[in-house]
């Protein structure tokens, strides 16, 4: 039997025999589930890996304070691969920026400690050095809104339009008097000029994070909060590359410091997520095997007399197997492509629906070829192999007349 005639025959049967629809709908659902699960899983892991690779927090060490604060910086900086050391209360500062406090944004910005050594690599415009003052580097897609509890309602500020503009920060001043924190009547004001823009998604910072110089940060902090003289502050030590973190920690420990990485991965959460995804896929495969078995078994019983008729017309067992397997392959491929279509719609919908969430959290979502391949293999082979195994056994174990006799059985 030629390929062309079997394809013609199969396509006629598929179009007219509505019983095939059930299995196809089921296969479509399975492809969507598997594709979605794999894509979700891959994106999650990929984003996680990206954040580990790109976020400075995975190569920033929190060093506990020692009894000898004055010599700490020098000692830590002396360790190979350490780029920068600074007191940990200077790390970031949440502040109100009246310039951006409009009806669309709450105007809250988180300022980050910046020096030439730890600024993001790629900056549009200019960078600053640690002793410069009155300068800032802000996100290209800027969102001066820190209240995560409220729904983000507006578009991001276009950083390109903000370049070379200024903003003013405002903060109440607290003083440390007789061991107590007292709010004073003064207010702290300072103006910053945006001299550069960085891509916050690239370095896994939030869209409300602006870098200011180390000296401005110290001034801001010291003028508004003041260090508690009775408290020893720890240090942040920024390492040049994540691969050197372990080495630096060991060296620090040799020098008598205890340190830990600022951000760490919750491996329990990741494992449980991986396991859940694996479970969904294996569960889907099991259901698929079960449904395919039932469907194909029933189809074989129903159609057995037809196979007997085909044999009486001169078809070989091989031809009958071929027709059946081609038919299932056809159904699987069609289901797979419809599944892709539905998945694609869901995917687009999710991207549009969660767009702001994704940008806010520096999440990149994309397609993964291996997700498609794995889905295709599962959808293609399970029904086909089951069909082959069931039918091969059935038609080879009985004569054509016995197959014809099956008509009366159902």
């Amino acid at each position: 039997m030629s390929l062309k005639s079997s394809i013609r025959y199969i396509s006629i049967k598929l179009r007219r025999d509505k019983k095939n629809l059930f299995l196809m709908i089921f296969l479509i659902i399975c492809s969507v589930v598997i594709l979605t699960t794999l894509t979700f899983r891959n994106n999650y892991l990929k984003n996680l890996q990206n954040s580990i690779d790109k976020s400075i927090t995975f190569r920033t060490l929190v060093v506990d304070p020692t009894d000898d604060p004055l010599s700490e910086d020098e000692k830590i900086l002396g360790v190979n691969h350490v780029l920068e050391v600074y007191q940990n209360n200077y790390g970031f500062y949440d502040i109100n920026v009246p310039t951006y406090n409009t009806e669309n944004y709450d105007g809250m910005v988180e300022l980050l400690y910046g020096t030439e050594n730890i600024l993001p690599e790629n900056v549009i415009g200019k960078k600053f050095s640690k002793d410069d003052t009155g300068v800032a580097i802000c996100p290209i897609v800027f969102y001066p809104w820190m209240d995560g509890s409220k729904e983000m309602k507006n578009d991001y500020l276009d950083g390109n339009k903000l370049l070379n503009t200024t903003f003013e920060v405002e903060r109440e001043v607290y003083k440390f008097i007789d061991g107590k924190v007292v709010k004073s009547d003064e207010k702290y004001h300072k103006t910053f000029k945006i001299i550069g823009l960085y891509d916050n998604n690239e370095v896994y910072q939030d869209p409300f994070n602006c870098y200011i110089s180390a000296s401005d940060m110290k001034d801001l902090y010291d003028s508004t909060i003041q260090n508690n003289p009775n408290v020893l502050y720890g240090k942040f030590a920024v390492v040049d590359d994540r691969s050197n973190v372990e080495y630096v920690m060991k060296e620090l420990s040799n020098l008598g410091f205890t340190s830990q990485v600022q951000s760490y991965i919750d491996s329990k959460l990741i494992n449980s997520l991986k396991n859940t995804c694996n479970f969904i896929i294996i569960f889907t495969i099991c259901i698929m095997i079960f449904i395919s078995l039932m469907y194909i078994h029933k189809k074989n019983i129903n159609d057995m007399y037809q196979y007997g008729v085909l044999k009486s017309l001169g078809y070989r067992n091989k031809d009958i197997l071929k027709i059946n397997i081609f038919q299932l392959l056809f159904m699987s491929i069609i289901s797979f492509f419809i599944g892709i279509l539905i998945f694609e719609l869901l995917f687009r919908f999710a991207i549009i629906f969660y767009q702001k969430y994704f940008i806010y959290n520096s999440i990149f979502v994309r397609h993964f070829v291996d997700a498609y391949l794995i889905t295709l293999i599962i959808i293609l082979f399970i029904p086909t192999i089951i069909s082959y195994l069931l039918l091969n056994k059935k038609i080879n174990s009985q004569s054509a007349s016995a197959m014809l006799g099956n008509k009366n059985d159902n």
Partner: protein
Amino acid sequence: MIKKEKNIIFLNNITKNYYLNGKEIKVLKNLCGEFESGKFYAIMGHSGCGKTTLINIIGLLDYINGGDYFINGLNVKNLSENDKAYLRQKYIGFVFQDFYLDDHLKSIENVMLPMMLNKKLNYKEKRALASKLLESLDLKDRDEHFPKNLSGGEKQRVAIARALANNPKIIVADEPTGNLDEENEKKIFEILKDLSKKGKCVIVVSHSNEVKKYADKVFLLDDGILTEA
């Protein structure tokens, strides 16, 4: 081994047993028979005597337990499954009591079904041939009908057209008129008679006495052997 040329079918000491729950049922017992091209044979006998069994054996749809069966001089006993399938395709056209048409295929597609195995004809030629066959069986405007839209007599004629699709030398029919009224029965027998006149070996199992009017030879199957009535 070549048997007499005009005997397209030669049955020699055929035995056929069924085994059911460990019990042996002897259906055909050293059955002998010869069938020639160009003749119409009727096989009659009481229910359960083994007519279907015999016709299935002749049509290569069932195995024999003993004896030799020659088609066109070729002993089929030791042929492989594939060779038997090839013989069925080339030599034998089968007509069933229940028509056994594919409900999802139109008349013409049902007739083309056996032709799918034929790689020599292209699709257009197959279609034309099927159409001609249907026309020759008085089904000129029924090409595009599905079986559910055909009468019983028409269905059986489509089935006959399908049996003729590969131009076989032998037509075997197991109670082809069993589900038809008298008028359609006559029509079917006439068609089969006509085919025998055109050189085919036609073997028909029937309960109906009507068949005797058409048959060149009537066999009675009784106690596992064929006797001429």
